[in-house]
């Protein structure tokens, strides 16, 4: 066994063991009063230690040692290893875990049935860590399924409420389907000799047709877990159903573990890539980005908006990965390094701001008991700190400079701008189209988060609960503040982030982006010969200076006294807050533009006759095309087949014996006839 230095797989594994021990202890302890802060505190400490180990691995270079435990398949054993890629994702996972545990110390007190959450939360964290640590197919799949089941249990924590039971059902079906696809992919990779250790897979590689098949299976398996359209249907159901800090983990971190699975198999295990592999990845990414944000714009449930927005961001990440494949297959290593850096940077960023947003949604839920945006409003007066931190996350996810979302999306677009160098016409045509889709989705994402922030936090309260809201506890605030500070730091100083990802990118593409730390004024450049550059610090300084100048001028030139007055309302000050912009009215123009194609929307206006005193009503119906075109037919086919096969349950004993008998005779006949 390797010595227990913090940067070794053995160390990371002992952290996983500690998390599992916490999970086991939480089973009897979960019913005790005040168990929640203890469990979350223990998770916080363990994740912090694991985060430290991962950061050391990432910055000081990965350890050479790996650990083989005598578990799993007898001739393989359970291999665990940390390379640069695993170290980066371990850092992301444990950063999210630290924040969620910190948030949980406060949020967990409001849990009605803590024994349904407390044991599974540490188990979920342990599962995600194990997936990243695994170095053979068996351990990987086992950890993957463990992670899925633990998160399923968390989704089902409040299984009696609303649609949660259905969400859990859809989730477990999709998760099993994804695991099946990955199982087949690893079966193809391992080959007939059953070399399931990753080292063995790397050594013998895969033939071209089976490699293409593996790519398809991995897109299905990892894509369904990450939420690529059209495999995303479980995500907007399951993520909102879980408690908010778990939603943050599922959306911010578990989808990243799926991205890790994709990168590990396609970039590390599968061997040299063909250029056309980029096409399906790019198309799936671009489609997911636009569809995700469009659906996000149409939702009224705050957490569901955030879940759909996750699909958009995953789409962006997959576009980055598709670009990497396209560049790498053509030998443009510098461009591939840029695209992969952008994708990984966005992985990190999305984990940050999506966690803040889910924490914010949880804070709103705690303060008001409401998730429907149309019953919120005006919370900025009641919850100033939460509002400010959520505003930072909204600006970051809308890719506004100088925050981190802008830096990574800028890098993705820089990579897209390098695509005219590519020789294949398929890529030359597809990549600009995907770029246009990304631009569209970025603009729509900004609209989406203006809507979220405007409806929930601005204006006047739309319900008594929103009027009675109060600020949440210090633990929740500090979790959000920690992540928001990281958002600002990563946005203002993106060069440091890029440099720390460089070793990961170097290991996978054989190149790295130019060392950003050596550039003057802390600016970043995408490729060495590029003329474009971005300086987060300068932008930040400019925005800060101009904003404070404007604020100073306004305060100086305008009256000092704060005066509250009704907003000007065309001379008719109205008493009802329901006359404000609502979530639906804000998104109606976009719904009209895309409605008939994407949503199959139908609007019905019920206008009373003149003299009739009842109010006019407008009724809008939206439909999910992916559900209707893909899932409903599959579900019908399955139930049809099951109906037919059901007759097999009611045969006589003699008929069962005859079935066995005729099967045997048929097989023997086949053996006799077969040459």
């Amino acid at each position, binding site marked *: 066994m390797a010595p227990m230095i913090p940067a070794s797989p053995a160390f990371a594994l002992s952290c996983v063991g500690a998390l599992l021990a916490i999970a086991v202890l939480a089973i009897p302890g979960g019913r005790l009063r005040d168990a929640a802060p203890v469990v979350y505190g223990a998770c916080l400490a363990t994740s912090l230690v694991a985060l430290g180990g991962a950061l050391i691995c990432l910055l000081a270079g990965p350890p050479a040692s790996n650990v083989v435990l005598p578990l799993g398949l007898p001739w393989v054993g359970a291999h665990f290893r940390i390379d640069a890629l695993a170290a980066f994702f371990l850092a992301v996972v444990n950063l999210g875990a630290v924040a969620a545990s910190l948030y949980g110390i406060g949020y967990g007190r409001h849990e009605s049935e803590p024994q349904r959450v407390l044991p599974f939360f540490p188990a979920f964290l342990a599962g995600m860590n194990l997936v990243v640590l695994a170095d053979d197919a068996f351990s990987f799949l086992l950890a993957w399924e463990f992670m899925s089941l633990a998160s399923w249990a968390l989704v089902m924590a409040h299984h009696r409420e609303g649609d949660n039971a259905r969400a859990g059902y859809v989730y477990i079906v999709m998760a099993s389907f994804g695991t099946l696809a990955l199982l087949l992919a690893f079966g193809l990779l391992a080959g007939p000799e059953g070399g399931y250790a990753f080292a063995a897979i790397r050594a013998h590689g895969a033939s071209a047709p089976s490699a293409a098949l593996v790519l398809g299976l991995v897109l299905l398996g990892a894509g369904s877990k990450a939420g690529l359209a059209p495999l995303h249907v479980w995500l907007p159901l399951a993520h909102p159903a879980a408690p908010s800090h778990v939603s943050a983990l599922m959306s911010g971190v578990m989808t990243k573990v799926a991205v890790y699975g994709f990168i590990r198999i396609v970039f590390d295990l599968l061997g040299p890539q063909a250029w056309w592999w980029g096409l399906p990845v790019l198309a799936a990414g671009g489609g997911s980005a636009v569809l995700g944000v469009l659906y996000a714009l149409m939702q009224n449930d705050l957490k569901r908006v955030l879940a759909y927005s996750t699909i958009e961001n995953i789409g962006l990440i997959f576009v980055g990965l598709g670009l990497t494949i396209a560049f790498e297959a053509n030998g443009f290593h510098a461009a591939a390094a840029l695209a992969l850096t952008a994708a990984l940077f966005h992985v990190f960023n999305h984990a940050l701001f999506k966690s803040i947003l889910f924490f914010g949604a949880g804070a709103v839920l705690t303060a008001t008991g409401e998730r429907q945006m149309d019953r919120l409003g005006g919370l900025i007066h009641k919850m100033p700190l939460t509002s400010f931190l959520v505003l930072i996350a909204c600006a970051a996810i809308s890719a506004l400079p100088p925050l981190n979302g802008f830096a990574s999306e800028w890098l993705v677009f820089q990579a897209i701008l390098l695509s005219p160098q590519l020789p294949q016409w398929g890529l030359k045509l597809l990549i600009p189209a995907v770029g246009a889709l990304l631009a569209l989705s970025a603009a729509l994402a900004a609209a989406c988060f203006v809507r979220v922030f405007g409806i929930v936090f601005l204006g006047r309260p739309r319900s008594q609960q929103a009027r009675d809201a109060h600020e949440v506890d210090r633990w929740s605030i500090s979790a959000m503040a920690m992540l928001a500070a990281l958002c600002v730091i990563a946005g203002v100083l993106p060069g440091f982030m890029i440099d720390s990802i460089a070793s990961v990118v170097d290991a996978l593409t054989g190149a790295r982006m130019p060392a950003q730390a050596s550039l003057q004024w802390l600016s970043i450049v995408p490729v060495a010969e590029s003329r474009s550059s971005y300086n987060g610090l300068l932008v930040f300084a400019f925005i800060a200076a101009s904003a404070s100048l404007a604020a100073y001028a306004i305060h100086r030139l305008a009256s000092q006294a704060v005066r509250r007055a009704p907003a000007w309302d065309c001379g008719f000050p109205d008493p009802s807050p329901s006359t404000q912009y609502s979530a639906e009215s804000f998104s109606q123009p976009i719904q009209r533009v895309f409605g008939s194609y994407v949503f199959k929307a139908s609007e019905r206006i019920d206008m009373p006759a003149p003299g009739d005193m009842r109010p006019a009503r407008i009724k809008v119906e939206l439909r999910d095309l992916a559900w209707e075109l893909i899932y409903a037919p599959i579900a019908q086919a399955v139930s049809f087949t099951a109906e037919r096969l059901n007759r097999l349950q*009611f*045969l*006589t*004993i003699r008929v069962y014996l005859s079935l066995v008998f005729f099967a045997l005779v048929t097989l*023997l006949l086949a*053996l006799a006839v077969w040459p």
Partner: protein
Amino acid sequence: MGRLEFDVAHLLAGGLVLMSFMLLYQDRLFALLNVFALQAVVLALSVSWQAYVQGAPHLYVTAAIALVFKAIVIPVALHRIIVRLGIHREVENVVGVGPTMLAGMGLVALSMVVMLRVTADAYPLAREDLAFALSVVLLGLLMMVTRNNAVSQIVGFMSLENGLILAATGAKGMPLVVEISVAFSVLIAFIVIGTLLFRIRERFDTVDADALDRFRGGQR
């Protein structure tokens, strides 16, 4: 190996198949039991001949087990069950004798073709034995499929097991432990099924397996 050893082994194994055919067309339960006991005797002879030819004394134990249990204990027990249940006059015919015999011949031909092809380079004695053993197994299955009475289905199962023992002794080097455990598992199965028979009889007043399906309200 001498010509004689081979011929005697062939004769005994063929006799086993012949007994299986005789089982197929018995439609009286007592006659069925008598033929079954006779088959067990032939099996015991065949196994002891193998023991003599292969010079494997432990096979004599197997032969003794077959003789004691299958030729004496089980037939006698079944005989008493039939008397106690009062079903010794029952005659059953689900599928006619002619088609059943034709199907049985087809099965024997099939097992010959399959086994002689698959075991092309095996020891000739084992080869013939395996082909006959497969025939006995298939004929036992055929009997289970074509009978309604639970007692005849048990007999079909037991004769199927005779085929398994024949195959096991034909192959050289099968350890005694395996054979003994197979014999005992069959005995246990017999006990379980016998108990079950009385239970079925208590509940449904018949041992016709179709009555179970009628009771279950299954597909008509």
